[in-house]
């Protein structure tokens, strides 16, 4: 039983990206309450009410300096997570990237690295940005691998700057830089 295909902006091979949707707020609330998801997001794990999820939605659904997407698994058209570019700075050509796969069943399938590639494509080729950065905690090696596969590389390590599970971890900063633009008729 597959859902009807939702509105999407960017279609990849296995995943597609579309706008945030009000009717998915309760799904976001379920994801926000999964400590497994919180572990890598840097938010304080805790109970998240529907009111709080709604506030999150209202703030980001109309954001001016960020682009928020719902991630869909194309085989089922199920929403499986969210991804966003924030702090978009046109003068310096920079922004930050982040992703959260909320559906546990959608993890470990390479969706994250495909989403990351699609978002870099969007940042560089549509928004014309030059440098996209992210931060990922040392306790999330799967995330680090996915980002590397998609084109990010580590440029700095903030030592002992993240507390989780009763110990300190490094906060790893990664960047991806737009390739030099090529002439349209180049080989």
């Amino acid at each position: 039983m597959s859902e009807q295909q939702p509105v999407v902006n960017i279609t990849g091979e296995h995943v597609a990206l579309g706008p945030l949707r009000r009717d998915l707020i309760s799904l976001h609330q379920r994801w926000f309450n999964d400590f497994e998801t919180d572990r890598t997001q840097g938010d304080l794990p805790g109970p998240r009410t529907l009111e709080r999820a709604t506030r999150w939605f209202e703030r980001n659904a109309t954001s001016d300096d960020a682009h928020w997407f719902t991630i869909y698994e194309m085989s089922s058209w199920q929403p499986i997570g969210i991804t966003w570019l924030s702090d978009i700075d046109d003068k310096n050509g920079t922004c930050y990237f982040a992703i959260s796969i909320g559906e546990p069943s959608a993890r470990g399938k390479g969706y994250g690295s495909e989403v990351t590639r699609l978002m870099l494509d969007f940042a560089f080729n549509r928004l014309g940005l030059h440098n996209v950065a992210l931060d990922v905690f040392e306790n999330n090696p799967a995330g680090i691998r996915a980002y590397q596969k998609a084109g990010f590389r580590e440029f700095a390590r903030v030592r002992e700057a993240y507390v989780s599970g009763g110990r300190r971890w490094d906060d790893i900063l990664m960047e991806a830089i737009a390739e030099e633009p090529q002439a349209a008729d180049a080989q």
Partner: protein
Amino acid sequence: MTNNDTPIYSISGERVALGPIEADTMPLFYRWFNDMELLRTAGIGDGPWTMERVEAWCKRFNDGSDEAWFMVFERESGQPLGFAGLREIDERHGTAEYAISVGEASARGQGFGTEATRLMLDYAFVARGLHSVLLDAAAYNPGGIRAYEKAGFREIGRRHEADMMGGKRWDIVYMQALASEFESPVLGRVFVPDQPREAGEA
């Protein structure tokens, strides 16, 4: 000195002191924020800065528990030289970000920023109990980078071609200071347990 004009100092170093930023200093910020030389490295956006915009920005000096801003004074004369702050203070992770601007053009390049930064790290680590302080500086600001190094920061990496200045792209240098590697210049003598009192003493 009981002169009303004497500024309040929270932390006194050798040549500089840090104290609260009073509301009547807004004209100073108005002047500083319209100095392109300061805006070049301050990362607060380019001018022109109206008094209204300055006052809105400076609201952060009074509210919000995740920031802490001090005026940087020349200790001897009490003259305000600039301001420094911790932002995004995160008690759970023990982290914060650091920023400083020496607003008085005549005070730049004399080591005031270095000492003010050392006192700010002292505040962050000893008074606030933080573990790590991060900053970033544009690669076209080697004077600042040298001052941060002397004060206790170490470069941890560079975000490449991420700052546009003068029509060219420059790297952004990331620097970190850790509590475990910092030697307190002042507050290590303040934040200590009381000595046992003699019997009969109040």
